[in-house]
């Protein structure tokens, strides 16, 4: 893109409005020429970030950042015109004027500090799920994005799916009557797939040398210092308390998303978790092999209170009576137990949503589509954000939505930390009213030199 006067004007708009004028009226999308592109930077581009960037490759990918250039080499190569960096702070300083929007796909523990820095600079942000590592971080990010009026999207791509909207419409249509109970499950953390095979272990004692191209201190970011070990990076950080958010943090933002949205769940009143056992030095380090987390939500408008139960590690809820005996439960999914029937769906945005049994599904007269669909469904999730950056109308899972969804998920993660205790939740004051021990996890201390 040339630095013509036009494009600068355009960029001033798409950069968001950070602290600019309250009275700003968004220029309707059609004002932008069809050929005008967003200037996007990527932070954490070796794994999921590469795929997020790919979905936006019709835009200008202007800068790429990764603490491990070797791991990101493929992505760097794919965008030869993009400037590359190891430290996102340096990139944001140097490229500030050239970047409209940022895609962040780093480990969970660094989401918040990076996301906040981008928002402060008025950048639009696409941030992987879960939104952050602690509830305090999620809330701070959500509020900051709101104030800065930047366009945001959390990376729960299923939220853009058609199935998600269909489920919402069925619930509005009272297809199964009031829903009082939801069961959800995931085969993670041991799905048998390499990317989900979380370690269950004490902290490694060996201290192998840091690979030459990896900036370990930056990878650690705000987390408490520990020596490098290959178990953490690039994949297995998800299984460690200090870096990831376990199976629930990873998959909950996908699998609990439909219930959170269609049932307008909001904040739970209480939550309790049980988990598999480990010896203390293991339990202090990594997430358990399996857990059951139970949430209780109060009534919302005309909707009755809901109990939501999460199973992971391949545990499953009891099969509902309506399910045909030979019909398998999916590897990931959820059940809505209504007074008049049952809905079952899979992962990533109510995939394969059905009323069960199948005879009832076939007999159901589906309501007319009342919600607009996202272009290309889940596959269009990133582009929905690009669209938002250009036309100023929020993306499908902006932080206004993704924030509270992540808070709910992370409260369950907290319950796993403090297992076998029914936690009473005061969302306004962000406080577990019956556990002071919870505070350190709601708002963990950052390593010196790091702030939100």
């Amino acid at each position, binding site marked *: 893109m040339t630095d013509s006067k036009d494009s600068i004007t355009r960029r001033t708009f798409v950069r968001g409005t950070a602290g600019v004028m309250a009275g700003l009226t968004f220029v309707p999308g059609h004002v932008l020429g069809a050929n005008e592109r967003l200037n996007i930077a990527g932070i954490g581009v070796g794994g999921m970030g590469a795929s997020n960037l790919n979905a936006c490759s019709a835009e200008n990918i202007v800068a790429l950042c990764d603490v491990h250039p070797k791991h990101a080499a493929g992505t760097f190569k794919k965008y030869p015109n993009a400037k590359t960096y190891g430290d996102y702070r340096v990139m944001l300083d140097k490229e500030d004027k050239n970047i409209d929007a940022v895609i962040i796909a780093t480990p969970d523990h660094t989401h918040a500090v990076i996301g906040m820095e981008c928002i402060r600079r008025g950048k639009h942000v696409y941030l992987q799920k879960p939104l952050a590592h602690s509830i305090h971080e999620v809330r701070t990010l959500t509020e900051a994005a709101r104030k800065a009026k930047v366009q945001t999207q959390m990376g729960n791509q299923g939220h853009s799916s058609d199935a998600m909207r269909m489920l919402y419409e069925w619930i509005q249509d009272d297809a199964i009557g009031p829903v009082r109970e939801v069961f959800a499950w995931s085969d993670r953390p*041991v799905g*048998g797939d390499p990317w989900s095979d979380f370690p*269950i272990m004490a902290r490694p004692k060996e201290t192998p040398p840091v690979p030459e191209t990896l900036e370990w201190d930056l990878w650690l970011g705000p987390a408490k210092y520990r020596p490098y070990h290959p178990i953490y990076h690039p994949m297995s950080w998800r299984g460690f308390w200090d870096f990831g958010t376990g199976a629930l943090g990873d998959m909950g933002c996908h699998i609990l998303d439909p219930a959170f949205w269609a049932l307008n769940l909001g904040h739970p009143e209480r939550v*309790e978790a*049980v*988990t*598999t*056992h*480990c*010896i203390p030095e*293991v339990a202090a380090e990594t997430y*358990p*092999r*399996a857990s*059951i987390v*139970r949430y209780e939500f109060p009534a919302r408008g005309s909707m009755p209170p809901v*109990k939501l*139960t999460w*199973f992971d*590690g*391949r*545990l*499953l809820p*009891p*099969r509902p009576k309506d*399910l045909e*005996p*030979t019909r*398998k*439960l*999916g*590897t990931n999914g959820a059940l809505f137990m209504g007074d008049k029937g049952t809905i079952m769906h899979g992962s990533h945005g109510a995939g394969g949503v059905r009323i069960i049994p199948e005879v009832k599904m076939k007999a159901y007269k589906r309501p007319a589509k009342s919600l607009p669909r996202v272009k290309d469904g889940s596959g269009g999730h990133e582009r929905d954000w690009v669209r938002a950056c250009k036309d100023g109308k929020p993306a499908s899972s902006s932080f206004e939505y993704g924030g509270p969804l992540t808070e709910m998920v992370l409260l369950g993660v907290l319950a796993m930390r403090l*297992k*076998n205790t*029914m936690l009473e939740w005061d969302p306004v004051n962000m406080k577990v009213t019956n556990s002071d021990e919870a505070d350190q996890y709601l708002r963990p201390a950052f390593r010196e030199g790091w702030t939100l």
Partner: protein
Amino acid sequence: MGAAAAIGAFTVVPRHVLGGAGNTPPSEKINIASIGAGGQAASDLRQMESENIVALCDVDWARASGMFRRHPDARKYRDYREMLDKEDKNIDAVVVAIPDHMHAVASMAAIKRGKHVYCEKPLTHDVYEARVLAEAARKAGVATQMGNQGQASEQTRLMCETIWDGAIGQVHDVHVWTDRPLRGINDVYWPQGVGRPTEKPAVPDTMAWDLWLGTAPERPYHPSYAPFKWRGWWDFGTGALGDIGCHRIDPIFRALKLGHPTSVEGCCTLVNNETYPVASRVTYEFPARGNMAPVRLHWYDGGMKPPRPKELADGRTWSTNGILFEGDEGKMYETRLLPESRQTAYGKPPQMLERSPGHYVEWIQACKGGKPAGSNFPDHAGLLAQLVLLGNLSLQPALKEKVTRTRLLWDGDAMKITNMPEANQYLRREYRKGWTL
């Protein structure tokens, strides 16, 4: 002495045919041989020392040394088959307290000789074995008892009487949970969810490894199996459900007058072909029984448990092991109605069941012609063990997710899973060459 006279066509030879003296009168002592003499066997035998302990058998004489010293006059064996051959005329009753995979063959050998049998829980390793053993005991008419001591307790009776009194109405769901295996994959209590060791340490001098293996497929000795840790291995043990299920499902089985379930569905953490999972959840469905409504029984282990009931007052422990009955007129946690105020108002149910003189005494009295013990094989333990072992089948690693994501329909009378034919092969395992039931 075996009450084995009335046996129909069964090929057991009753002792009096061999010139024995008929039932041992209550005033006389019975002669007991034990298969297994360390660990749980020692603890069982200490409860039977009112009788004569005449022979002790253990594949590991180091493990048995305590009992050998305690009963210096008892003759010592390594191979129970040899012991039963040589001591046939000298013994009335046999205690079987060895790893699960050997329960059926050892107990059956004793029953075939008309001996009374006390066998540790779970009765057997496979559903098929439990059924055949219970049937053999019935035909032989011998006195039997499975080692689930809790069946003789006051709590078990209280639980039954409260339910039968209608204190919580019709029970539609009952939950039972245990925190075992206590340390998951970490090798502290017994490990589950781990793979087969590759090292081949030498077999201890004191141990007859081939006899320890018995019916199980050949594999090298390793201390991860013996002593004690065999419980977590599919080839030898029956996991948390087999171990604790027979204890904790027992009172539920009695209170709700359960029999064969109509279905079972299990799920668990990732399993391998070697060890039981780190955690599991199994649900059984039972049809109406007499005037009792259909009921679902939910099992949890590995730290999992059902939701804490609202009626349980704040500050009261929601234990890591427990039983919760949910009826259409209330809930009962262990033997107490919820909330506690209801229990206080209720007091005690009318007594409907006789109290036990003690779990071991029950069996000894039965051996001497008294009434059948509370957990005898034909009327109770066989069915209870089949139920527990069917739960393990629903986690069968060879069937992987096919089995854990499906509800298995169970025809108890025909001993058949009707909707997944290939699952039926796991009702009965193959024995190593040289071993038969």
